[in-house]
């Protein structure tokens, strides 16, 4: 019997949608016939605004591009400007940056735990992991002065040195999180129902994954070891000892395992960084910000964010304002074309589940 297809609008006001976007589904029964992503609900025109702001002023609005994990934006912009300008970054600043990025990754993964399990109805996990993420935010507050928007990594280095006693606090938090991970495992990853929900859902063809523009954990879950930190090492990632998450199932379960593995790696990396971080300067001072002109040039820089390759294309025409800053977040591909493909034939129950597994973050699609 053929049922009549109904149109289901998932979002923008919908608890199952990450952020503020809409997925328009053509549904027959519980099966999705076709899906299309509608974005723009968060469009602020950052790229335009940056054309009006000078290089330093641009730095402050950048972190708003991706709210859950603002640091890769700052990192990208800083590195792009440094690369155009040829500005040296002190060694210590590089280590601090890597530490910030890893902490941000842990925080984002914790948030992802909440999203992934919450979209499957396991709310306890979200209550735990977001609560625990708050300890990372506390660290950020201590380090940068802001919980969410750090505005910390800027061209030339980082904004402030580590505060006194920060190292111990970081290590304590890492120990705490490691202990909590055991609980997470028990609740989420060992859970039969979660496994049943996750296995075989949202399958990405490994042979096509690269071509479709899949990056980050979903790509690694497809058995392709690809990570900007390894492929195109920035900062001090070539001096750190870490492994990439690996799975071959290429489904939500695989992605979950990759992330689960990497959060542990990140905790380890933070420990390594705290151990090896050299003393010294942390900031190579920029000129007077109002008169700071960056020589003409361009750079495409990328950072491995928690969701995958995060790219910034920055062009300078030699003036004190950027000519063009183009932001390409992983969700730009994941949440539009890839999501539309993956949702075809899926169950409506899995929409939110799949979206979360891809790391959808609407603000970075729309900017």
């Amino acid at each position: 019997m053929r049922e009549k297809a109904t149109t289901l609008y998932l979002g923008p006001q919908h608890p199952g949608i990450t952020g503020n976007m809409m997925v328009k589904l053509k549904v027959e029964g519980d099966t999705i016939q076709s899906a299309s992503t509608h974005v723009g609900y968060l469009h602020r025109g950052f790229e335009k605004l940056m054309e009006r702001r000078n290089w330093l002023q641009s730095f402050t609005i950048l972190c708003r591009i991706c709210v859950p994990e603002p640091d890769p934006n700052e990192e990208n912009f800083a590195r792009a400007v440094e690369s155009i300008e040829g500005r040296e970054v002190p060694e210590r600043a590089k280590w601090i940056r890597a530490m910030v990025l890893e902490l941000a990754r842990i925080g984002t993964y914790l948030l992802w735990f909440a999203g992934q399990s919450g979209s499957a109805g396991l709310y306890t996990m979200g209550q735990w992991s977001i609560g625990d993420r708050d300890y990372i935010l506390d660290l950020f507050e201590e380090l940068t002065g802001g919980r969410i928007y750090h505005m910390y990594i800027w061209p030339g280095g980082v904004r402030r040195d580590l505060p006194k006693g920060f190292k111990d606090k970081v290590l304590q938090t890492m120990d705490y999180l490691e202990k909590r991970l055991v609980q997470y495992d028990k609740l989420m990853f060992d859970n039969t129902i979660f496994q049943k929900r996750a296995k075989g859902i949202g399958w990405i063809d490994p042979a096509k994954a690269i071509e479709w523009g899949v990056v980050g954990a979903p790509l690694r879950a497809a058995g392709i070891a690809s990570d900007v930190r390894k492929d195109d090492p920035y900062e001090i990632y070539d001096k750190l000892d870490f492994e990439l998450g690996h799975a071959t199932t290429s489904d939500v379960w695989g992605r979950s395992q990759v992330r689960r593995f990497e959060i542990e790696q990140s905790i380890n990396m933070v420990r390594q960084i705290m151990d090896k971080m050299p003393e010294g300067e942390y900031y190579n001072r920029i000129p007077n910000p109002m008169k700071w002109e960056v020589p003409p040039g361009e750079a495409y820089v990328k950072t491995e964010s928690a969701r995958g390759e995060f790219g910034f294309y920055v062009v300078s025409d030699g003036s004190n304002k950027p000519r063009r800053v183009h932001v390409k977040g992983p969700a730009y591909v994941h949440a539009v074309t890839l999501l539309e493909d993956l949702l075809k034939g899926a169950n409506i129950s899995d929409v939110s589940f799949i979206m979360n597994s891809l790391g959808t973050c609407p603000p970075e699609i729309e900017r």
Partner: protein
Amino acid sequence: MAFFDIKGLVNPLSTLKQFGNKPHTVEYPKKHKETADRYRGLHFNDLEACIGCGNCSTICMNEAIDMIHLDNIEGSEGDSGLRPRVDNGRCCWCALCVEVCPTGSLNMTKQDIFISSDADAFLWTPGVSNPEGKDILSFTSDEKTSLSLFDRVPMPEMEGEERVKSFAETMLYYTEEAAREEASRCISCSLCTEVCPDHMHIPEYINAIARGEDEDSIRIIYDNNPLGEMCGKVCTRRCEDVCALQVRGDAVAIRWLKEYAMSRAETADILKEIVNPDIQPANGKKIGIVGGGPAGLTAGYYLALKGFDVTIFEANEYAGGMVMYGIPKYRLPMDSLNKQIDYMKSIGVKIQFNTKVGKDISFDDIYKNHDAVFVGVGFQKPYNIGIDGEEANGVIPAVSLLFDVNSGKTPDLGHKVVVIGGGNVAIDGARVSRRLGSEVVIMYRRRVEDMPADWEEIEGAEVEAVDIMPQTIPIEIISDENNKVTGIKYLKAEMKADAGGGRPRPVPIEGSEAIMEVSTVIGAIGQEADYSFLSDEYMNKIEINRGRMVVNDQQQTKDPKIFAGGDAVNRTADAISAIADGYRAVKAIEKWLMK
């Protein structure tokens, strides 16, 4: 999967034991977790420390910060009188305003909650709206982290031993690169323009340099100062004392940047080409100017531009007055000054050299043959030192020494010179004496830090091995039977706080009397004007009070036809004040004659 995954059932259930754990909830509002030491909360502005430079307002890309007048805050020198007000409906708590605040008065506090049902309540004047914020500062910016560039680009200087060998310029001045870098430190607050007697457009010409538009910079300087290069080398630069950056660091080298810009025009012709002034057609009015010093030259230049027929009467062979004859050539080379004067001549300023008014031409003639007269005679006559034995041979006023040296003479000062005084003239005398081959001692009554001379000059003197004896009061000059100076008797002094609250006074220490053997004593206590060229008739017309001509704020004396400016009028007695007087007089003369 196994047939029945027991682990997958038991493990999740085992986490229920968390029920027994104490919740880690922060029980706000019962307990308020204190924010971190760096938390970027609401702003706090120390209203006393704030100078109203408005840099916070400029950096704010959200245009959240307005500069407003507060009722109880008046502007003063180095303080615009404005204070920032934050529109918290725009603020994004990036704290860039804190990072660029040159004084460090603007900081962020730990106040993290701001709630209101009134949307208009979010205009927030930091420091006024939250006086309690003072004690809970959190995100602050010190000299190390501030985005204000507090370190001046070092000025290349000649080595100490090299310097005393000649009268070559000791400052080597900025290269293009250094100048751009230094200019880019400027935050363009314009506090300096208020202190500059001439109100030069300082931020504008510095920004022009920063942007690489040196010619525009020259044009801006020439807008109200025709002796920019001279000022660039020897100005007393009071502007730098109020520079927003000097509160916590080094002031922008305004003077040297001006020098840099002006030195781009190497000859008078190039200068003319660059400035390319708009000369108005002759209007038939004639102006006579007595004295070719900075005041006279300035008045002459701008009057000429406005179409007046200007004649300057200069007593000496070269124009420039005290700037030409009172400043040693290692600070201000003759070529530099002549270049500027040549340029003035090229646009129609007439200068009659070697024409001393009162001797070669009577003031009466000038008065009668011109529609207006500007008197810029300056202070030429040195004060006496005022101690016993100063009539002796070998006691010379510093001004005379400088005049002689600048006129090409090389007087013999003997092996050891003592200079009495602590002003720029004293230092000049001392450094010139070093170049003439003598050992030099400067005696000054107070401490080194009290010396009115520029610190750069004092440093220069120290580099050139001038011995500075602070807290030393000369009491008698000792001379031999030929009335030739042989020594100087002096007392050491200690600084006593003034009971009346004034600055500390030196009080001689009893029994500290000593004698130093010297060959020359140079007095640099100060100068006064010489009004001998004015007949009694004019002396009566022009009111003279304590050696200075009395003028109104238009530089007009009691005789409306006579305008006056320069050292002979104003107390500050420096070149830039004289230029300012000249410039002001031009406007007044124009207004008075062309009304």
